[in-house]
């Protein structure tokens, strides 16, 4: 019988190192300032006063990939932009996650033509897809919460 089962969940007393690390990582996932198109404007509204991403510790948009640990691909990724997106993803330090915000980033959306990469998962691995064109701020926050649940479930050796 594990300690938690015997004593019940005493919060920080019976927490595991893994949960503590994951809790710290979800507490302040700093997004990369990476707005491409219309979803970036909706992303700015989410950062604004009414929907306020600061509640999730995410109000600090890091412009350089070195200091960011969450890349929100907000907008349509074109053929000319694809190497830049891959370059930025490579230059981010582990642990890093990706949210494909909007239909254009998730599956090419309205633009099924020569110029747009049909879904950003063709160039970088994506953790959460947020539907919508552009997704409402509530949809994006729902996507972020889904990502937090995913992070809470991760093991230490995934990133070690």
């Amino acid at each position, binding site marked *: 019988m594990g300690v938690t089962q015997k004593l019940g969940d005493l919060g920080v007393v019976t927490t595991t190192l893994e949960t503590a690390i994951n809790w710290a990582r979800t507490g302040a996932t700093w997004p990369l*300032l*990476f*707005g*491409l*198109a*219309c979803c*970036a*404007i*909706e992303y*700015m*509204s989410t950062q*604004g*006063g*009414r929907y306020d991403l600061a509640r999730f510790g995410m109000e600090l*948009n890091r*412009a350089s990939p070195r200091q960011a640990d969450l890349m929100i691909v907000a*907008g*349509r990724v*074109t053929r*000319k*932009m694809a190497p*830049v997106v891959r370059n*930025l993803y490579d230059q981010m330090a582990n642990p890093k996650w990706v949210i494909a915000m909007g239909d*254009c980033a998730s599956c090419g959306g*309205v*633009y*099924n*033509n*020569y*110029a*747009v990469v049909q879904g950003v998962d063709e160039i970088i691995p994506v953790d959460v897809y947020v539907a919508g*064109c*552009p997704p*409402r701020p509530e949809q994006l926050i729902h996507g972020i919460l889904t990502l937090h649940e995913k992070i809470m479930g991760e093991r230490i050796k995934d990133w070690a």
Partner: protein
Amino acid sequence: MTANSALENQATEWVGSLDDVKNLVTERALTGETMLLNMGPHHPSTHGVLRLLLELDGEEIITCLPDIGFLHTGIEKTMESKSYEKGVTCTDRMDYLAPMSNNAAFCMAIEKLVGLDVPERAQVMRVICLELTRIQSHLVWLGTHAIDLGAMSVFLYCFREREKILDLFEMISGQRMMGSYIRPGGVWRDFPAQFVPDVEAFLDDFPRRIDDYELLLTTNPLWLDRTQGIGVIEPDVALAWGFSGPSLRGSGVNWDIRKATPYLGYENYQFDVPLGEHGDVYDRYLCRIHEMRECIKIIRQALKRLPEAKGGFRSDNRKFTPPPRAELGHSMEAVIHHFKLWTEGFSAPNQEVYVAIESPRGEIGCYLHGTGGNKPRRVHFKTPSFMHIQGIPLMSENHMIADLVAIIGSVDIVLGDCDR
């Protein structure tokens, strides 16, 4: 080979050649005296994915080469494979800060091509939507322009007001930004009863908000130092390089399409066009702030004209506009028109038209060429951001990088608008 040695040899011997930019930059760059820096697609202050290849002597810009196309989504090619009614939703995503002015440009081009009439009530509704879009677009411009130059709080205030306008758009079109509310022949459906009181409530409260922004910025010495005398462009140079809108009026050229070639009944509204004298960043800022106040005047006059405007919210020429649902129950022609319009759409002659209207950024022109069938042969949008980005090198000669940030903010560019 450990990490830092990889960094060392990468920095010293740099493999690659300068010949592709040889004829564009001065020879000082080729000898290595000046530095070539990418103010690239991923940069906090380029308002989107614009890449500026800068040749720098220390902080000073020698040459600035804009490189666009990072957001070219082939919207015009996609619209060639869609019928006219379906093409309206594509235009929303072009200039994503002013979706309704793209819709209006495209729909007015269709109406001109097929000779479709727009009832007076629909024109007044369009004017209200366009002016609300102009306010919303200027708020995003002011927010991002101020945050680029360090005024964080203005960004939050502007987006607080913008949320109110987005609620109004959501009430009439169901979508906050990409409403596709303006359709060929008029608008999608009538205003809900709650819309007009809400707009009046917004208009009563908004002038006080603009005074707050002016209080924060207009007489702020920091703001004046960063914007006055920066990015000056003379009127004739601006005209020759195709500037339009507040960027052109900032240099003192009195050209506003709503006044010069009135459309949608703009000749009935009294409003004045703000002009700048020096054509620097500060004058363009003042023009747009003043323009926001003018929009309030226009919307108030439009709201007064709305009740007695004749006609419905959309033209009832059933060849082009689908009949309302209620009519389908009891009239055979309505079912036939409904079926034809929603399966194949209407057809337009094999001719070309060009319609230019005043979008918040400048003159947006829609060149539409029909094929005789139900799909356009060619849709080409002449967009203001395209010309303003072409003009950035003119304004940024021997300025500093920090001034370039102010210049980019002042010409209010949107990359979706530029690359289409």
